């Protein structure tokens, strides 16, 4: 029946959307937890991998866009609420929502600035995890 195929497609769609949870399993759902990596380790991976290194670097740069957007959005909407409203909880909520909206807008700007739509973002993260696993198992014999 076509409806069975339809539901299989729906399940695949949601499996793709929630696939980012697998990364938490790779990091947190292990028998022994992976040692926490530092920024220096990430820089080392970026220098070593010619394909996924620049992608991961672009991803990390896009964080700044998102944070900057969050600050701008929070300041703007919080400022408007502070100027025109008397309710303190309203100002707090407006600042929070402005931060959220600004973060989304900043990340969208970064998406087009670095052309992140061309790359597999989850794949770049996964490549780093695999590289980190090999590095840690090699050096510490775990």
């Amino acid at each position, binding site marked *: 029946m076509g409806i069975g195929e339809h539901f299989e497609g729906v399940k695949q769609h949601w499996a793709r959307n929630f696939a*980012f949870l697998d990364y938490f399993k790779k990091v947190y759902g292990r028998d022994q937890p992976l040692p926490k990596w530092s920024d220096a380790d990430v820089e080392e991976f970026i220098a070593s991998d010619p394909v996924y290194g620049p992608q991961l670097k672009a991803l990390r740069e896009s964080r700044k866009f*998102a944070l900057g957007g969050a600050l701008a959005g929070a300041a703007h909407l919080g400022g408007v609420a502070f100027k025109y409203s*008397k309710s303190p909880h309203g100002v707090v909520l407006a600042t929070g929502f402005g931060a959220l909206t600004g973060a989304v807008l900043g990340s969208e700007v970064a998406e087009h600035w670095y052309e992140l739509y061309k790359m597999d973002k989850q794949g770049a*993260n996964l490549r780093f*995890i695999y590289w980190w696993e090999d590095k840690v198992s090699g050096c510490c014999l775990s």
Partner: protein
Amino acid sequence: VLMILVLLCAGMDKYHSSTRFAPLRDAPFALRGAFGTSNSSFNNMDGLRHSSSIGQARSYTSSPLGALRQKMPPSGNRSLHTSRPLSTPVANRPLSPHLPLKKPQLSATFSISHRIFGAALGAAIISIPLATRFGVMFEV
């Protein structure tokens, strides 16, 4: 004859418009003492409307709020809220109890729980695409 009819109609229109809005104009004037300090924006708009149309600008200062001595904004006929922003001090007077007195009825309880649940559900639903979008960026 036509001119006279037109003039009469214009005059009747003005009469109708003033009588149509007269009860609305009187209502906030009548209720000016019924609200406490929490409703100063209402009183300020009431003062604005009066000053722009009738000219009884001092009516609201004769109410118990007169001690607050609110200034009217110097420009514009309408303001979003009162001209006093969040940073200026408010008179430290207690409000009359409303929440401890009113018996919780099903309608009110239902309504506020519906609002709280809706807000929580909205936050939960929007957190899914937000987590998807930002989880990739802040993962490594």
